[in-house]
């Protein structure tokens, strides 16, 4: 592994004709952590994940996953036996039954754990004799998850693992992710469930229009992001508050609202210079940070 990183990419890019789906992406994922990969639909998350797995070739840049080059097709095949992956569309064979699908998958992996398979079958209440074709969206997701979680891989990559799951299913999924991480597996997953991500992720990566716009630990975000709401006797010009760390400034009447990714104390000091009547500093939720990062200018 490069610098002990499980995933490392350098200026990774993918273009489809004139459309750049992923641009100059530098990812660096630490081992034994839970990393959430966030972004709007079409931001390039699935394209990135498929490049990491060697399923599509990068147009530019390169990277390593578990120390193996993703642009090398031979290493890519070896890689896919060391990673458990749940795809976005939960690619399954519709004509098989659940039981056939599991037995078929099991044959490919030496790290398969029959005890874990049995446990997950009971937990997910999957009907063994049903055709995959007739499964609900949530059931399909659970079957896809079972086939990844029944193994003991070094790295778990999940593309939208909570798709179609009900609240109980999501809770079960989170518990399993936590258990796998406790066992030392590195977890990298994309999701739209920001509230859940905010609980279990160690690290957050936000992709927007193919670019990485945020790469930070959640603890750092919690500690440094603040919303500062101010009231002034007469409102100063916004540019006085566009100082280091400030992401956004809005004014309405006598009120000003400042979003700072750091340096909240600088904003407070500036507000005092302008004789603010009221200074109110509040923490910022991940949802608000996300919305700010993917805002169209």
């Amino acid at each position, binding site marked *: 592994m490069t610098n002990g990183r499980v995933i490392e990419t350098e200026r990774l890019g993918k273009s489809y004709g004139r459309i750049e789906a992923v641009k100059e992406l530098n990812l660096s994922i630490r081992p*034994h*952590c*839970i990393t959430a990969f966030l972004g709007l639909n079409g931001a390039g998350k699935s394209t990135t994940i498929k490049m990491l797995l060697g399923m599509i070739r990068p147009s530019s840049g390169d990277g390593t996953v578990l120390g193996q080059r993703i642009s090398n097709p031979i290493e890519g095949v070896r890689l896919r036996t060391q990673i458990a992956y749940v795809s976005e569309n939960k690619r399954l064979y519709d004509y098989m039954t659940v039981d056939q699908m599991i037995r078929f998958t099991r044959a490919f992996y030496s790290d398969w754990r029959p005890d874990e398979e049995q446990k997950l079958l009971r937990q997910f209440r999957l009907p063994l004799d049903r055709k995959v074709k007739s499964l609900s969206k949530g059931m399909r997701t659970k079957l896809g998850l079972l086939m990844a979680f029944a193994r003991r891989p070094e790295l778990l990559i999940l593309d939208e693992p909570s798709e179609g799951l009900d609240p109980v299913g999501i*809770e079960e999924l*989170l*518990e399993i992710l*936590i*258990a796998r*991480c*406790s066992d030392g597996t590195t977890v990298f997953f994309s999701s739209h469930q920001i*509230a859940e991500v*905010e*609980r*279990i*992720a*160690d690290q957050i990566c936000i992709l927007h229009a193919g670019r990485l716009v945020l790469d930070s630990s*959640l*603890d750092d975000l*919690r*500690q440094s*992001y*603040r919303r500062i709401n101010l009231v002034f006797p007469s409102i100063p010009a916004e540019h006085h508050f566009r100082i280091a760390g400030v992401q956004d400034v809005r004014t309405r009447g006598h009120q000003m609202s400042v979003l700072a990714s750091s340096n*909240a*104390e600088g904003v*407070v*000091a500036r507000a*005092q210079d302008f004789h603010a009547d009221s*200074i*109110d*500093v*509040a*923490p*910022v*939720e*991940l949802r608000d940070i996300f919305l700010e990062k993917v805002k169209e200018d």
Partner: protein
Amino acid sequence: MFFKIEPTSGQPLYLQLMQQIRHAVESGALREGEQLPGIRTLAQELVVSPNTIAKAYSELEHEGLLELRQGSGAFISLSRRARSLSNHIQAATRSVSDLVEQLRERDFRDEEIRRMFEAVLLHQPEMTRKR
């Protein structure tokens, strides 16, 4: 022992857990020699990353409040240093509660008081010092 984690409170989760364990020791809810849940168990119970629990435990071990025994878990250990620290914290907590009580009597709401504390702390950043 019950812990409660607030993901949106603006404070790192491992710090929240550390404070709650310290508080539990100070209030007598956790006693010397008592065992805390394993990392995996507590992570699943609180639905947080196991790294959060591991970090809180290891910081508390550093403070001398916890003893981590290989393979058997985390135990409350009140070293002399931790005990004097705990008395210190108890005294400080009393001053803070007195102040909060005074502010409440002057009709400030808890939310307003919390923000005042935060604004003051932000405006007068702590000098780097060793305890």
